[in-house]
């Protein structure tokens, strides 16, 4: 990994590691149900145990997303969401918390604004970097340049189908952490965590990745606990989107607290106990 440039995501993951646990990364799409709610929910996630916040840019053609996130982002666009509002969301959350805030975006909106301009504005808003589900390092020369220029993290994805060569190449191209896709599929809650995730994390570590976080299909504290045993971070999306849809900001806070109970690597950490201690710890940062 490129480590010469300081990484906000790496720092957040390392703080969790210093506490003897994996990091929790929570996803919500910007502008759902509105921009202020996204800011409030992001702050609620950070105060209830999320170490990193991932804010998605609603996009017209989200091919890596399942029905729940599709419905949310479609609604956000229908209500008039504009891409530039994502910088307000990032600034709003970073102003109130110490969580690292990343933006998850399909590539065309970035390309349309201009990779350099988008990167500059993200950095100015206090953002940590980008997670890019449909941008592979092979096509990312403009993004390499801009992310170095503005000190942003480049989070590329690796999948169970990635060849050893591509895994090594993608790990080398990433900064902050590597996003390991737990299963072959799109976002959405699933009954069980795929067994392929653990092998993928091990392979990415072996290929030189210092931090590997697992996402896709992670929806409850039990999943979190299982993944926290071998990964540096756990990414939850769809379950949080369903929470804000059904119960608003408060439900997002509650679910985050519950999810974070699964983070400790200590075998005996009862979920209730861990949950109650996390918010206090976070507020000290």
């Amino acid at each position: 990994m490129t480590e010469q440039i300081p990484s906000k995501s790496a720092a957040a993951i390392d703080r969790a590691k210093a506490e003897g646990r994996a990091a929790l990364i929570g996803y919500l799409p910007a502008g759902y149900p509105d921009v202020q709610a996204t800011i409030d929910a992001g702050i609620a996630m950070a105060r209830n145990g999320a170490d990193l916040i991932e804010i998605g840019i609603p996009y017209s053609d989200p091919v890596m997303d399942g029905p729940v996130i599709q419905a949310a982002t479609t609604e956000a666009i229908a209500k008039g969401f504009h891409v530039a509002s994502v910088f307000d969301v990032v600034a709003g959350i970073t102003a109130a918390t110490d969580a690292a805030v990343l933006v998850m975006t399909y590539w065309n909106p970035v390309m349309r604004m201009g990779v350099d301009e988008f990167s500059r504005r993200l950095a100015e808003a206090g953002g940590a970097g980008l997670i890019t589900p449909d941008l592979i390092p092979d096509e990312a020369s403009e993004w390499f340049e801009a992310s170095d220029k503005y000190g942003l993290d480049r989070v590329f994805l690796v999948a169970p189908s990635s060849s050893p060569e591509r895994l090594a190449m993608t790990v080398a191209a990433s900064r902050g952490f590597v996003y390991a896709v737990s299963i072959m599929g799109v976002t959405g809650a699933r009954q069980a965590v795929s067994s392929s995730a653990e092998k993928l994390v091990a392979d990415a570590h072996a290929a030189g990745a210092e931090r590997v976080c697992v996402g896709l299909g992670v929806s409850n504290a039990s999943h979190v606990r299982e993944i926290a045993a071998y990964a540096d971070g756990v990414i939850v999306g769809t379950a949080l989107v369903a929470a804000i849809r059904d119960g608003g900001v408060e439900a997002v806070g509650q679910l985050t607290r519950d999810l974070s109970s699964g983070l400790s690597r200590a075998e005996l950490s009862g979920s209730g106990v861990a949950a109650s201690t996390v918010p206090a710890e976070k507020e000290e940062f």
Partner: protein
Amino acid sequence: MVDAPTAGSNENAADAFLQGGTTLRHAPGPYFGSYGGRWMPESLIAALDELEDTFDKAKADPEFLAQLSELNKNYSGRPSLLTEAKRFSAYAGGARIFLKREDLNHTGSHKINNVLGQALLAKRMGKTRVIAETGAGQHGVASATAAALLGLECVVYMGAEDCRRQALNVARMQLLGATVVPVTNGSQTLKDAINDALRDWVANVENTHYLLGTAAGAHPFPAMVRFFHEVIGEEARAQILEQTGRLPDAVCACIGGGSNAIGIFHGFLDDPSVKIYGFEAGGDGVETGRHAATITLGRPGVLHGARSYLMQDEDGQTIESHSISAGLDYPGVGPEHSYLADIGRVTYEPITDAEAMDAFRLLCRTEGIIPAIESSHALAGALKVGQRLVEGKENPAHTIVIVNLSGRGDKDVQTAAEWFDMLDEDGNVKGTTLSTRKPKGAGTFADVNADPNADVKAQTSEDQN
């Protein structure tokens, strides 16, 4: 970044390109100038690599080429005819119009060329299932056909709006054993069908080949789909030489994603004397915003795996396209077309719904051929091109224009009947008791798979009325 050229401004550049001895044919990808590439999730890269490798080996394998050629000849009915449209030509200023008859292929369009090739590749890769997107239904029908022929499971994603416009093709796919999934996301048309097909592919890539129907998408699709359609241009070039003793002055095709067009263009790209025209769907008129004229009014972006011209708003969100023709109703275009537009080798122009439907009716009445509405855009364009090219010429009949008649219009009879006001309030053809429409409440497309036989019976009884 390359800006769109003004019409015709780069013809000198294209001439220089050709005089430099460089060929425009057989561009291998992944890039066509600054277009193309692989803007795709990592999860699918291994499958694209496997496909590229299989395709590269197959196209150099005499056994594969012989197998494909045998199917083209004895299954699809190739070579397709080149028919001179003598009465239609009178409306093109007297220029001689020749029709490349892809409408006569098995399944009724050029789509069969590509699906046979890709289905053979799917078998070579050991895949047991193919998925496809479809707009007008022609590619879905062709995919279902190839899957039946080669014993593959087939699932077709089709926008719910397109299911309505092309109900007959839904029934055809079901008759052929395919499962049709109506897509209710977004604009419920071709782009959303591609999104859902990609989601399926990510989840099932181990046993599934995505049989993409147009010369777009991530590498190797644009170059591969073109390869399977190159036969159109190669045949047309040999046929026009045989029938007239010389090359045409112009070649015309319609452009949605651009597969029929790139197939016929390929035969003439390296012939500097041949002007090449692609006709996009102008919908209600490009000034109305309701159109699918991607190259004319779009700007470069990434969609469905390739960098190409794209209809997008200032936020980079894809704009919904509009066209009377389901097969052209797509806000993107194949990357090779974007490149050919930028270097000025091909001229791209919009044709409105009204112009296309006028040409549709004209071909019906002057030649006894009912064209697909997609192909009618090329016909309307050819009328304009013919009139332009004969201007100032002593003998207009010395001007020769080839039109790729990419499909037949049987599927479009309902749309045409509505357009030409042939129906009464109940959907019956005026002056008859013949209904072109299902009775109200006869079922929704949400349950198209529920009982295929029910649809089949309804259709058959209508046909017999």
